[in-house]
């Protein structure tokens, strides 16, 4: 009965309900299935014009871009995602400043390391670009599966299960932020996060440790894997 009620609401809000569902549009989205996602990056726009894919964009209505997306050359959607997850209480400006200061701090740390390095090998191995380190850190903290709680016969089992790309990214970002917050207080957040990013990019640090512990637990519980379907 609840299903039919929500169906009714859905139909009144969006007349293309069944078409929308088959096109995999979000249930309560104000956009119908004919709307396409915007292209924000100027490099990508250039490519579209050159390769001739422009036809697919010309005659369709386009959704408006999210508020924190910009067409700046220096915009990165993963950084935007990180700031969103970092934000609390709606203080986005503060989170953006923190991210900027974190990246600055990463650069300073790496330059310091460069000046202290003794061998040429060490010097060549140091990456200065904070964005590359950021991407590497997130890549290294992404887990490959998650643990689901399944109840069987009165007992709850932790069952390993595959994980979607979005959830992986969310988990990685969350662990990085928590690892950054774990450090003692007198050090400011940008400095803590910079250390955490550099460690995670080198596959060390507490965020990566958490990921490997999850993997260990999944491996230990592999016998329960079929509980998902039995």
């Amino acid at each position: 009965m609840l299903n039919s009620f929500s169906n009714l609401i859905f139909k009144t809000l969006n007349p293309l309900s069944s078409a929308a569902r088959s096109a995999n549009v979000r249930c309560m989205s104000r956009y119908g299935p004919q709307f396409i996602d915007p292209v924000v990056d100027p490099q990508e726009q250039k490519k579209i014009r050159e390769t001739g894919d422009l036809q697919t964009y010309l005659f369709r209505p386009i959704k408006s871009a999210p508020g924190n997306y910009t067409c700046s050359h220096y915009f990165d959607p993963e950084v935007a995602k990180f700031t969103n997850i970092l934000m609390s209480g709606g203080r986005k400006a503060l989170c953006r400043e923190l991210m900027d200061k974190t990246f600055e701090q990463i650069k300073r740390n790496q330059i310091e390391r460069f000046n202290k390095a003794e061998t040429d090998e060490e010097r060549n191995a140091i990456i200065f670009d904070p964005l590359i380190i950021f991407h590497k850190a997130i890549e290294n903290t992404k887990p490959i599966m998650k643990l689901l709680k399944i109840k069987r016969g009165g007992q709850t089992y932790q069952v390993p299960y595959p994980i979607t790309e979005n959830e992986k990214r969310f988990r990685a970002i969350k662990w990085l932020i928590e690892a950054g917050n774990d450090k003692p207080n007198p050090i400011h957040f940008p400095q803590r996060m910079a250390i955490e990013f550099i460690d995670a990019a080198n596959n060390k640090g507490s965020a990566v440790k958490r990921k490997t512990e999850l993997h260990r637990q999944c491996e230990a519980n592999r016998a329960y894997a079929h509980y998902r379907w039995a």
Partner: protein
Amino acid sequence: MIVKLLRAPRLLSKCVVRNFSAVEPVVNLNERKVFAKRAETNDPATHSENDIGKFYTVSIEDNKKLFSFYEFPAQFERNIKTFNESAFMIREPALEIINSLKTLDPTKPILKFVIYGRFGEGKTMTFCHICHFAHRAGWILCYVPTSTIWMRWSKEVTFSETKPESINIPLESAQWLRNFKIQNADLISKLDLRVRDKIVWSAREITEKDAPLMELVDHGINRVKYAADVVDVLIENIKLYSTEQRCRTLVAIDGFNGFFNPKSNLKAPDKTPVPPLRVTIMQSLMKLTQADWSNGAAVLTVDTKNSYPDNREFVFPLYLLHKEGFEHLDPFIPVYVPALNPKEVNNLLDYYEEKKWLLKPQAREEIEFLSTRNPYHLTELCGPL
């Protein structure tokens, strides 16, 4: 403000390509070698109009001597540590003032320059440039980084014994004397300046006539109780020697409008409020900015951050100095420090690329636009890039 400028969601839905520079993203940093333009010599006295926009470096010893205590803006301080050098950009207002100082008439009363400008556009850096020139050219330097350190964070406040109704801040006065010693000790001993009159501090402490001036300074550092009075005597001596053309003095006070604030955070030992001009060291420094001596110059900056929060609307000297300050300083030469011109912006960005600070030089025009050519905001924007 910068966050607001970066948001433009409505326009994005139209797939409009912005007219910013279309430089391809640089993948291999080793391929692109950029070098900033630098001046031929590191001596500020030899720079000319052709050197405007170029960089020159201050040596490490000069840095330690002159600028080791609160002098530089915090952002520049961090950059010195990261880049392993302190590089100043040669700008027009600084060159103007330096040229006037070079052609100073020693018989006329002192020249007074007041540097003003908006936040982050280079007042303090111009100021430090001029101080470096004066030091290299053999001038005595009476250097006050900011008065806020004294007015807000003074630890000890005592009544003055020599001046009625005045307040001493002994620890800070002693610190100023210590800095003065580091900056000017060599010069003063070379010029062999001596104390004019005998001074009796107490039954057992006397500074004899014709004692070396540094002995007086040492006395002030060791006996913190008399530091403020030592400052007063020192300043009188310096003024006399300058007028006699035995030495040249530059009075350099950053944030001079802080002297004329109606209130400060200090409280006298009997809990009465202390306006800045009730403090002895401030009164002594005010004497230095009077026009009753010659063969010297006063370079002052007026800054909104040194004035009280309700007095920060404009940046102009008359507004910030109030009537009192203006009448005290009048006549003076106001010098405006503007935002960077395109050539200077280019060179600054080249410098950051050279130092591997700006790692993504794709859209330099974007950075220039967003920062409105303000060097502080430009450096902030280049931080995460």
